[in-house]
């Protein structure tokens, strides 16, 4: 007799247009285990899980739940089968209370809204070991509260199989530990749990088994106890991580961009960047490491002039550039490219052609009232040729390109503009290894040309190999700047989680301020 699995996927394939997100995937989940679904960004983890939760439907393949073949056409079907998913972007109604968010999906809730639903909700939450204010509206909740609510929601519908999509990305260390306690308790109660992540430490800590996806394909499943991070990484990236990234040594120039005591607010009005000081010299790559959402986006936007700087100063070649409009900052040669999670959100106009996207930042330079498309086309051709962009033509809308090519177009344009400071966030997000190396190469070429580069990244191995120095952020505060070739992953990890603060390591000079700062001249210029 074969073992009865909670979930059995076989031959699952899903394509979006010409992009195949999942290719013939087989995956089994045992009863009462925690299975980590490991893979790089863009390896198809979320797509696969969305097929279990009824958001997408597979193009082909079968799904078995508790041994029975099922077809999941909608989240309703998934719910009925006892599958619940906590999405990375929470699916909550902002204007509803916590209780109503749960109540709206409850079966047999009765026609009339029960007055005691708040008390009932609180009791349910207690039963699962959570403490939540049932009357609190979602729009007034902190991120971790929202996540808790999502988990309560899923549990209260009686889900036996629970999928969590990158649940730790938005949590603090303490919150992660609390979440893991909850997950273990759920497991003990007989739930099967799938946790999507790309953080190896967490995989080792929480999971019973690990299933690995790479570029939309299923690689293998191993028992966590019988493996180690090195092995997992190999499976995840496809070969031994001998990150052979060049780090050319360069003659460093004076600081190009200096930030001093900068404070920036987030969209929600909270302090996203809190008193940050650092500087970038020409010919160096400064990495910025940190847990997702600890101020990287706000920092990038502020440097580009897209977000006001509440306090502090930002000096470019000795000139104060705080409060200047984005266009002026662009003209000074500061270029920012940010690859958001959906990859198309910022920096590109997805419906416009590659040519038109090339023109985005310099269209205004053409003489007269007309756009110089000839120049744009020439630029597009050059970028396509030099960065090996795969596209039918220069007139293809950017949205029709695959992820790696979109990023090449974006980065290609930034470099074309000949910046002296290049801010780039997640430039290899979701790219395969080959494309990633192409991007590292581009950055290194820029570095050799004397450009100062701020590299906001996710992968510590890459940053340690590529960057000269790494600045670590934790909840908007600088935890220190370390030399990339001297530091260790452990040290960085500790700093990222806030357990190690190296800012006061050198007491002779304040952290993040250059010895040969151009700051003084700048101030005089500003005042003068």
């Amino acid at each position, binding site marked *: 007799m074969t073992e009865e699995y909670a979930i*059995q996927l076989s031959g699952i394939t899903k394509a979006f247009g010409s992009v195949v997100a999942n290719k013939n995937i087989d*995956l089994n989940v045992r009863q009462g285990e925690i299975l980590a679904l490991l893979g790089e960004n863009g390896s198809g983890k979320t797509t696969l899980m969305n097929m279990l939760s009824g958001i997408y439907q597979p193009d082909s*393949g*079968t799904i078995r739940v508790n041994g029975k073949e099922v077809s999941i056409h909608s989240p309703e079907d998934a719910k009925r089968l006892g599958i619940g998913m906590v999405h990375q972007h929470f699916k909550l109604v902002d204007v509803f209370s916590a209780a109503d968010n749960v109540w709206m999906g409850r079966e047999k809730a009765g026609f009339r809204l029960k007055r005691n639903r708040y008390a009932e909700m609180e009791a349910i939450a207690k039963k699962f070991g959570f403490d939540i204010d049932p009357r609190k509206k979602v729009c007034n909740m902190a991120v971790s509260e929202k996540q808790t609510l999502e988990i309560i929601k899923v549990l209260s519908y009686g889900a036996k199989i629970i999928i969590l999509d990158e649940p730790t990305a938005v949590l603090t260390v303490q919150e992660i530990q609390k979440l893991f306690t909850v997950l273990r308790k759920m497991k003990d109660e007989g739930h099967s749990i799938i946790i999507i992540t790309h953080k190896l430490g967490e995989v080792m800590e929480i999971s019973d088994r690990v299933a690995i996806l790479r570029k939309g394909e299923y690689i*293998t499943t191993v028992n966590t106890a019988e493996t180690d991070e090195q092995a997992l990484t190999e499976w995840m990236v496809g070969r031994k991580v001998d990150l052979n990234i060049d780090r050319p040594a360069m003659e460093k120039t004076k600081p190009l961009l200096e930030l001093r005591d900068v404070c920036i607010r987030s969209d929600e009005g909270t302090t996203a960047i809190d008193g940050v000081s650092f500087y970038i010299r020409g010919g160096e790559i400064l990495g910025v490491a940190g847990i997702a959402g600890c101020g990287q986006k706000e920092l990038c936007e502020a440097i580009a002039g897209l977000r006001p700087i509440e306090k502090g100063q930002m000096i470019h070649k000795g000139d104060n550039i705080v409060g200047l409009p984005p266009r002026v*900052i662009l003209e000074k040669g500061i270029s920012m490219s940010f690859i958001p999670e959906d990859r198309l959100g910022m920096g590109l106009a997805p419906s416009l052609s590659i040519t038109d996207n090339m023109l*985005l930042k310099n269209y205004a330079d053409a003489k007269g009232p007309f756009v110089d498309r000839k120049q744009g086309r020439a630029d597009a051709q050059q970028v396509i040729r030099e960065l090996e962009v795969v596209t039918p033509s220069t007139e293809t809308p950017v949205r029709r390109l695959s992820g790696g090519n979109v990023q090449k177009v974006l980065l290609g344009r930034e470099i074309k503009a000949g910046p002296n400071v290049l801010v780039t966030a997640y430039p290899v997000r979701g790219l395969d290894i080959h494309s990633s190396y192409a991007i590292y190469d581009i950055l290194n070429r820029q570095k050799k040309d004397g450009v100062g580069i701020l590299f906001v990244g996710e992968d510590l191995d890459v940053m340690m190999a590529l960057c000269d120095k790494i600045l670590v952020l934790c909840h908007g505060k600088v935890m220190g700047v370390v030399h990339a070739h001297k530091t260790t992953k452990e040290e960085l990890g500790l700093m990222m989680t806030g357990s190690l603060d190296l800012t006061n390591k050198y007491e002779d000079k304040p952290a993040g301020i250059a010895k040969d700062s151009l700051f003084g001249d700048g101030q005089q210029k500003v005042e003068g």
Partner: protein
Amino acid sequence: MGMHIVKRENLPLWQKVCLYVGAVAAALLLGAVLLLAIGVDPIAYYNRMFTLGTVGNPIAYKVYANYLADLVPLVLTSLALSLAFKMKFWNIGGEGQFIMGALATAVVAIKLGGVLPTAVVLILMCLAAMVAAGIYGLIVAALKVKFGTNETLLTLMLNYVALYLLTYLMETKVPWNFLLDPTAVRPVPQSFDKMVKFPSIPLVGKFSLNVCVIFVVLIGLLIHVYLRRTKQGYEISVVGDSAGTARYAGMKVGPIVLRTVFLSACLIGLAAAFKVGSTGILSTTITEDVGWTGIIVAWLAQLNTWAIFLVSALVCVLHYGSTVAAATFAQVDSSFANMLQGVILFLVLAADFFTRFRVVMVKKGGSDHGNG
């Protein structure tokens, strides 16, 4: 086996055209069934309608002139709206802006007609109309930019505010109201077609071409160049595609929205000036619903400048033709055109779905080995 719906990447143009033509044909077929049901020969009816009753008509030249007179404001309004729509600014206030333009035109025409040279008055009429309509649109754009006010609902409301202002001026007989004919006892609008009017150029036979037609074609050309070639046109496409990207590229999104909406409303005002300057009289029904129809035309033409000309021409045939046909076929009300237009649009909307999505069958299968 199951089926579900997925987004389509791109459909070849000819397939798109086939789908739309099919939708229109199906709608006409439905109309034909209805005509048969009430005992009218659909072929004869459609024949009359699509030829605008010009066949064997000794005053066909008048029909063409009238048809073009209807077409001019519709094309221009649709073109104008397409500018705002391209930026995803849902200006459904074409009616209100048209009315404001029409009022301004009439004021200038009555006050200055005969005082200044005709050409000067005509130019002033156009300018006044553009400014009046432009400001009426600009108010909404400013509120949208500053406070995020919902422009769809606000422009909708302002349509009626303008309409009742016009009605008030057209129905209130008081000494200061120079928009009404002072010699009439009842409120009758003051006609000024004797004093100022857009001239017509005699062409073939008795047919003469209103200069407005030429202007509209020229404006169409300019808008095409504006959208495709100029920096401002480029800014419109970027803002419409992604406001975040526009901001990132250093564009000032607020001013771009204001500028574009103002321009859009100005052109609607110009459409009103052409209309009023050609009829030589104001009335409460001066818009003939071009503000509404224009929205539909702009959308049907998918904001393509030349497609707007084509679609407007067809919609106008439908409207004008059904009035003509109603004179011959007494049992078919002229409202048949509205119904037919509705059915055509419903089917085109349905056809549009198939250009953006496709229905796929879900296969089962795949290997049965797994992990564990």
